[in-house]
């Protein structure tokens, strides 16, 4: 398996507050890797930094919201350096973020939401992708002309995954897919994520729900205070008493 995505020494500072502290990790092609850790550990910040959002915030908002932002390190994807690319270029290279709670475009219909994902592709490719997404998530087809703001939590997450699939991703960065979902919906989402992986898409997801993440992923990282604390398969991590107690809270 080839090294696909490699994050090296990534640091993010909001003013002088360190959110990511020289973090490194890698994802191989075709893998499903999970990133678990408590609130405020820096999971979302990591995904945002990889997808170019932090860079965008740094350049556009210039700290008007949360102070001066500093971003250092390297994110290599398929041999290309991403850290200095604007977010839309990163997306066009096939690294797509599914944000926490989906964040659909609320006032657009489900179908329009999906179409936005493929705006930079040809119409024909976009239509094909739409078919594929509808086949994967029949529930979205049922709701295709409904305004996205009225969707339930699970549907929003599915919509955001579907929206990312529209842009023919090579790697999906899914932020907290299971947050706030009922067990039944969690289970079906679990299956869908497996299906997406089956389509040949590499996935990096963050989770607070350790059992959900560990069942799904082939390899896991434990993150705490902006650093990777441990890495390994679910069995390895669960076998380690210290990590289980202090970081996973099991």
């Amino acid at each position, binding site marked *: 398996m080839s090294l696909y995505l490699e994050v090296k020494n990534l640091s993010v500072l909001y003013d002088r507050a360190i959110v990511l502290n020289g973090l490194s990790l890698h994802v191989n092609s075709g893998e499903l890797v999970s990133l678990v850790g408590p609130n405020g550990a820096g999971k979302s910040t990591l995904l945002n930094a990889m997808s170019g959002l932090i860079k965008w*915030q740094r350049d556009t908002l210039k700290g008007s919201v949360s102070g001066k932002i500093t971003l250092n390190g390297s994110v290599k994807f398929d041999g290309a350096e991403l850290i200095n690319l604007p977010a*839309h270029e990163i997306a066009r290279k096939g690294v797509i973020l599914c944000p926490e709670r989906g964040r659909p475009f609320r006032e657009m219909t489900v179908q329009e939401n999906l179409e*936005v994902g493929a705006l930079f592709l040809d119409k024909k490719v976009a239509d094909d992708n739409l078919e594929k997404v509808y086949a994967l998530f029949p529930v979205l087809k049922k709701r295709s002309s409904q305004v996205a703001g009225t969707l339930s939590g699970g549907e929003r997450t599915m919509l955001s995954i579907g929206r990312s699939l529209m842009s023919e991703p090579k790697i999906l960065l899914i932020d907290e897919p299971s947050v706030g979902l009922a067990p039944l919906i969690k289970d079906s989402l679990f299956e869908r994520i497996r299906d997406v992986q089956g389509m040949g898409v590499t996935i990096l997801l963050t989770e607070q729900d350790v059992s959900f993440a560990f069942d799904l992923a082939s390899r896991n990282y434990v993150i705490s205070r902006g650093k990777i604390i441990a890495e390994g398969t679910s069995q390895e991590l669960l076998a380690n008493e210290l990590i289980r107690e202090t970081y996973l809270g099991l």
Partner: protein
Amino acid sequence: MFVSILINGLVSGAVYAILAIGFSLIFGVAKIMNMAHTAFYMLTAFLILGAITFLDMPLPLAAMASIIVAGLLGVVCYKLCFDRIKVHETAVMIISVAIAMLFEETILLTFGAQYQRIPPFVEGYFELGGVSVLNQHFFTAGASIATLVGVWLLLSKTKLGKAIRAVDQDREIANVMGINVTKTSMQVMGISVILAGVAGAVTAPTIMINPLMWTNPLVIVLSAVVLGGLGSIKGSAIAAFILGYAETLVVFIVPDGSFLRGAVSLTAMVLVLLIRPEGLFGVAFEEERL
């Protein structure tokens, strides 16, 4: 009476709607409170006047050229001013006021302060229900509504339109979905100013034009945008029609009270906001209030 209220309300409502849509587009996409928006409307009217008197252009050509020039000027303003300090939202707002002032004073200097007239696009008048209505009014209403339909088609059918709406609703997510937000913002600035220009061109023949004519519509547009719920393009258009009709009604009920026009629509806005702080069509998300 009823017919003329209907027509006049329609005319002013449609024009305000065009202005309000342009304003809320650039506000939604680039977070710019463009107080110079209606100054572009005034500018276009005077560009047309200039093109007719100094360059002897035929009216339709003059109108087209003026709208395009205004649009280009808008993009230049965006590039030179707004884009460079977009972080400081208050500074952006003040710069737009300064730009509006600059336009106003330049026009004052070249054309003078007196009221001037632009010939109508179509001559003559028309009897309807016992009232004579100028054909120009029909033209203005028709052109405005055609523009509104055009904007609606642009926003709902084209790729650009979808990109604009996506950026309007969530800039960050639109960005990570592969949309170039900076480029879209500039395009929207162009579109927004062109809309203001269209509004100026179609209204100019129905009123006396004057360099100070941008303040009153600005107040109406601001209240329409807030009344409709900031960020809701549809809401601001509908609110613009409501305010347009409210204004027309006031003029009919209190004939010599044209100074009350602004006051009444603003009172309506204040009352609505007190009852529904998020505007008529805005959505309040309780979960996000903290």
